[in-house]
């Protein structure tokens, strides 16, 4: 798959996919989308990168072990649920903060953190799988 055309355009597509994935993730609470789909798109971006430039290059680009990213996702998703321990509520009770930044209100909430966790898990895992399959038989795992 080592063609100039693909290699050249891949980074652009990948960057756009990553941006789009973030959008889909953050918008999920109000519109179709969410952490899972976002993560899937982001992981697809990594897969494209892997196909265009090779798994090694993609892994280098990621810097972090993608499985560790997935683990981190579960950790923050779980932790976001644990926060409600301090509010006298059951596990996973949502906590909302409405930050006033200038004229806009930015809502920060545990469900949002949770969804970001979902995003990271899906991203990390699917990226792991795609890259592992890309580079015959799991070196670097």
């Amino acid at each position, binding site marked *: 798959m080592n063609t*100039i*055309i693909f290699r050249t355009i891949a980074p652009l597509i990948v960057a756009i996919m*990553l*941006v789009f994935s973030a*959008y889909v993730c953050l*918008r999920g609470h109000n519109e179709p989308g969410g952490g899972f789909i976002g993560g899937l798109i982001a992981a697809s971006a990594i897969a494209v990168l892997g196909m265009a430039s090779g798994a090694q290059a993609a892994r280098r680009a990621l810097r972090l072990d993608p499985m560790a990213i997935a683990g981190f996702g579960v950790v923050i998703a779980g932790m976001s649920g644990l926060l409600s321990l301090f509010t006298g509520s059951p596990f996973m009770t949502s906590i909302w903060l409405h930050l006033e930044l200038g004229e806009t209100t930015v809502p920060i909430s545990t469900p949002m953190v949770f969804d970001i966790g979902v995003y990271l898990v899906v991203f990390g895992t699917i990226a792991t799988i795609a890259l592992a399959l890309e580079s015959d038989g799991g070196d670097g795992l």
Partner: protein
Amino acid sequence: MNPLMTVIVLALVWGAISGNFSGLNLLLGAGIGAIAVVLLSRISGSGRSLRRLRSAISLGLLFIYELLVSAVKVTLVVLSPNLRATLRPAIVAFPLTIKSDAEITLLANLITLTPGTLSVDVSADRSLLYVHTLTLDTREALIADIASGFEAKVREVYA
């Protein structure tokens, strides 16, 4: 494209897809774009930045026009009752005068999207772009057409 430029473009893409060009939102977009760029920084991204916006816009307009024409042409071919007579498929080696990856890629994609042509391959030394055509008139006519059309415009954009 240099990283800063890319971040700006990505921030604008963000603004577009999220339908909100407020400063705060663009900042968020820039942040996300920056993450993407950092991720991609280790992928060798050689290439030259867009120099001339006007040329780019002109290329875009040409492209849209050609695309529509292309779609119509294909339609005509597809719907023609006597397919065998209409079709004259061929692969022509188009001698490239542009050399950079970005230029070749752009050209190849444009060719693919436009009338009766499809980029199949680029030769190893990047001197030839193999173009498949549905209705070959003459080889030379096709080459001249591309060279004076898209290739020239692409060269202008990246000049």
